[in-house]
């Protein structure tokens, strides 16, 4: 019985963490927020094997499990690191493994030389005028808030639960960037007009699993970001003096930090469990993924606010860059299902309501 990380997993998390500590400081984040160029970082992460992590060994990848990927997601969140992780390193291998037509693409993904954007947001709540229809093998419609933008290919969900692979260069595809609060994760919009796409699956369960996996990754990203905000708050409180004493000696400040820690700490085990369930507990995977993303969204929102308050006015300025984490947590909350949506899905999946 072991509820925790293997030695290999601890090493993986340490390696990624060390790489990001070296390469992603506040200056680097600011530069990315300006120019959107993460090529060097992604190259470095590719050398560590990150995009190959979930690609099966038979397809030239490392063939690890969702829990391993979740540890990487957590590290990326901790460092507010820009990287095409969700679509390229997670969704693509999960959705495309074993699909003959995607073999070459997956090899390029594993090598870090191709990027795959994720365009399945409408499956978790479609906005007016958005959504993609598949008819006679051609896709038409709009997908908003596409991750890993811009990418070479996009995984696109249709209104009936089917999944398709669309080349960015295919005829009938137009796209544009969509600015969001989170400048560390470029996001875009796809407009499709009768686009011929590679069919990936017409089984809604496949799309469902893709949602489960990516939701757990977003939760893991929030876990990392929230832990970072708590660590920064504690460090700042120990250093910052007011009324001739470190503010960390004020009971109000201590209790704010204790409340954050008390909320965050069980989330670590929860994310591990949810990621483990994706591979090993199929009957629990959906409910656990919904709960984990919803719960992390709530904890994240509380931590984002509270850690900012501990920093006082400095937390509100751009000087310490704390807001990159605040916004990262916000992005994870809103994307692919708000807490209310997820809790309702969890209730339905348990047949708690008609």
């Amino acid at each position: 019985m072991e509820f925790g990380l293997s030695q290999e997993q601890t090493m993986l998390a340490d390696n990624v963490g060390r790489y990001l500590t070296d390469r992603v400081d506040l200056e680097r984040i600011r530069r990315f927020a300006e120019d959107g160029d993460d090529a060097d970082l992604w190259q470095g992460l590719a050398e560590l094997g990150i995009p190959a992590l979930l690609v099966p060994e038979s397809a030239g990848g490392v063939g690890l499990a969702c829990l391993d990927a979740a540890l990487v997601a957590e590290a990326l969140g901790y460092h507010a690191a820009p990287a095409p992780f969700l679509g390229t390193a997670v969704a693509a291998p999960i959705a495309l493994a074993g699909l003959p037509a995607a073999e070459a693409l997956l090899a390029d993904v594993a090598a870090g030389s191709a990027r795959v954007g994720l365009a399945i947001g409408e499956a978790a709540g479609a906005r007016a005028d958005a959504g993609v229809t598949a008819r006679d093998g051609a896709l038409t419609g709009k997908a908003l808030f596409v991750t890993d933008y811009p990418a070479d290919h996009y995984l696109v969900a249709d209104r009936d639960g089917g999944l398709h692979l669309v080349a960015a260069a295919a005829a009938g595809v137009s796209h544009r960037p969509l600015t969001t609060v989170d400048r560390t994760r470029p996001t875009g919009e796809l407009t499709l007009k009768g686009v011929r796409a590679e069919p990936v699956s017409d089984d809604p369960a496949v799309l469902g699993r893709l949602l489960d996996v990516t939701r757990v990754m977003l939760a893991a990203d929030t876990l990392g970001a929230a832990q970072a905000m708590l660590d920064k708050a504690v460090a700042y409180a120990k250093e910052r003096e007011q009324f001739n004493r470190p503010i960390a000696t004020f009971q109000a400040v201590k209790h704010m930090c204790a409340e954050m820690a008390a909320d965050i700490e069980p989330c670590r085990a929860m994310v591990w469990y949810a990621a483990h369930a994706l591979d090993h507990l199929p009957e629990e995977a959906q409910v656990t993924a919904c709960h984990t993303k919803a719960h992390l969204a709530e904890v994240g929102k509380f931590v984002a606010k509270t850690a900012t308050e501990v920093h006082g006015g400095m937390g509100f300025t751009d000087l310490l860059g704390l807001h990159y984490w605040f916004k990262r947590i916000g992005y994870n909350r809103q994307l692919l299902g708000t807490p209310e949506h997820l809790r309702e899905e969890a209730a339905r999946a348990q047949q708690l309501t008609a």
Partner: protein
Amino acid sequence: MDLSYGPEYEAFRQEVRDFIEANRDRAPKGAGLRDPATLEWQKLLIENGYAARTIPREYGGYGAEPDILKSRIIAEEFARGQLSQGLGGQGISMLVPTLLEMGTEEQKRQFIAPTLRGEMVWCQGYSEPGAGSDLASLSTSAKLDGDEWVVNGQKIWTSTAHLADWIFCLVRTEPDAPKHQGISFLLFRMDTPGIEIRPLVDMTGAANFNEVFFTDVRVPKDQIVGARGQGWAVANAILGHERDSLGNPDATLSRLNALIELMRHETIDGVPVIEHPVYRDRLMKLQGRVLAMRCNDLRVLSSRVNGTGGTGLARLINKLQGTELRHELEGFAVDVMGEIGLAYGDNPYLRGHGSWQNQYMYFLGLIIGGGTSQIQKNIISERGLGMPREPKIQKG
């Protein structure tokens, strides 16, 4: 309970409305502090008693008796008419009352009238990087050298520093005195050599504030309000005013109504968000809290109008409750929009011009600024509930 203002005030309201209708075309379109149209409009408002209403005539005001209801009616009607109520800013809202209470006759004559007319724009130099909640620990120093103060140090959170002609500034002049007794209140020109201004970007991406650096800035000795070492008392004479104005429930009500419209029009899977029972319940919870805060505000207004007491606690809690409520409301609006709630900047899917995300963050700034929620709770427990201060700490 009598929620009407009575015939005298309804007549006054009509007067204000008539003025607005008659002069609507003269109101400035933009917000340029230095626009001739802005200055003309300010002059017209003062002449008619809709700005600088209670400032004595000899200092360039309108010279009316204070009347809280009339002030409120003016504010209500200008807001209804969507017209500028004249110039604001910390010179008019903070320095003028300070000078009226603590300035010399000469200072009053020199500074108040041009400030009211918008010819002299001020910024405030209080907070420092090391002196936030503990403002009295500020360390910007001023040393007397002949007939001049020599100022060195740094201020932060200085709004309009880049636009201001003058600054009113707290500096430490008696480094050996206890911290509250070593501070002086200086006035000096922002074009004095040795002043550097750097814009301070905040989490919303805007630069509404500045950092201001002073290196051997020389200030004539008599440009001080109150005596040497009394700056803390001078600043505190009117500091309470600022806190009162944060978290205004009428503004929160407008946002709540905008939120209801948003929820009627925004859809998920084709269903308006307001038809989602969980979101509707949260909306109603907010509406109940807004109602409570509006009632609280009316109670405070009434006690000020009628000179009755008993609303000390009702005032003390306003900043804490008002800013937290507003932050929560704006954040809830982001929530109900799902992924659309992430839209920012030039995103074509922005709702309400991006105000929801923006205000969600901005009001977190207001929760922190002007006394954090932790400081507010200290104040409420001590001044409102009579609980003891924290005991003194042993040194070392």
